[in-house]
């Protein structure tokens, strides 16, 4: 028995129109929409929790210093309905992330595009961002 994920996601697209978000806080109160930044690093932790799913990357800067960054995703409620799971991103994976920096200077960002080493995007909500359901 094989589960046809392409068919599953094709079915999801019928019930999940592209819509807006809030989850539990205002985006502009925490993140800077003018500071979209690229990161590359290794996944050290995934928190599949409310009110936001999060993951952490060890990121090496130009001087070779490694620091841990916290990336905020959407709500696991909707991410699960979009077909993603806590296993969509695995500890130890190398990923590239495009995200908006926190305004207060913390090592946090709101992740908008998470790309695996093989080029696939995960946790996206629209087809433009790589969600196979859209």
């Amino acid at each position, binding site marked *: 028995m094989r589960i046809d994920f392409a068919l599953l996601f094709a079915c999801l697209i019928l019930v999940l129109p592209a819509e807006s978000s809030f989850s539990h806080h205002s985006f502009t109160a*925490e993140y800077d929409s003018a500071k979209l930044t690229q990161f590359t690093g290794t996944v050290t932790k995934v928190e599949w929790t409310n009110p936001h799913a999060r993951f952490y990357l060890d990121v090496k800067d130009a001087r070779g210093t490694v620091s841990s960054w916290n990336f905020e995703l*959407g709500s696991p409620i909707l991410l699960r309905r979009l077909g993603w799971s806590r296993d969509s991103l695995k500890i130890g994976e190398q990923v590239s992330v495009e995200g908006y920096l926190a305004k207060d200077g913390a090592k946090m960002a709101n992740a908008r595009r998470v790309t695996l080493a093989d080029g696939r995007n995960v946790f996206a909500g629209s087809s433009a961002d790589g969600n196979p359901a859209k």
Partner: protein
Amino acid sequence: MNRGYTRLLLLAGMLLALPLAAQWFDYPTRGVPRTPAGKPNLNAPAPRTGDGKPDLSGMWRAANRLPCDGINRVCGDLPISAQFGNIGAAVEGGLPYQPWVRDRIRQKGPADDPYTRCIAPGGPRMHMLPTMKKWVQSPDLLIILDEYNASYRQIFLDGRPLPADPAPTWNGYATGHWEGDTLAVESSGYRDDQWLDAAGSAITSTARVTERIRRVNFGTLLIDLSVDDPKAYTRPWSVTLKEDVVIDTEMVEAICAENEKDVPHLNAVPRQAR
């Protein structure tokens, strides 16, 4: 094919199917009216209970959801309506706030919103939350369950009066009765520190809230919400909230406080920079 191999295949199949079935995200909702082509007919007449009353039962979520814009509103997160941000968005001239409410709205920010702080949405604000709600109607009681904090609200339909001097609570005390096909709900007993929307519109212990609820068809609830709260407003005001039915999915528990990490960073941002 021997019996042992067949059993192994069946077991493997069950195990593969279990994660999807267990989540119930695509489990078909029973009793959904269909068009001749087999598609859900959300414009079909509202269902009725055995005693002939409109049946408000079902899963619902706020209608008029704003589209994603890729920056402030992401497609991968929960959708909101304009009324979530400002319940008086459609009220000409805005809500008639008392001066202290205007001051509070100016002084407070997102980090002060009880909803963002994972405390409680409170009473009628539940209708506007981006999480899904499940309404369960019986002749004597309407229960509204919310994914957010796995919370509930009770609306008693058994004829009991509202309490005369209630201890304030986030969800207040609510009773309802039928006026034709409209469920008229009265509630009171709210706290003084509640927010009705993300802007900080108030509702207080002097509030008397009326919700006139109609299921106008299978797929739509209309809620005429009236707030008479002299402590917070200079006159009573009314808005209409709309809910869309949700089919073929299931509630998901969302305990907000399990990993809330945003509030300290919201506090760190000066108000003028928000």
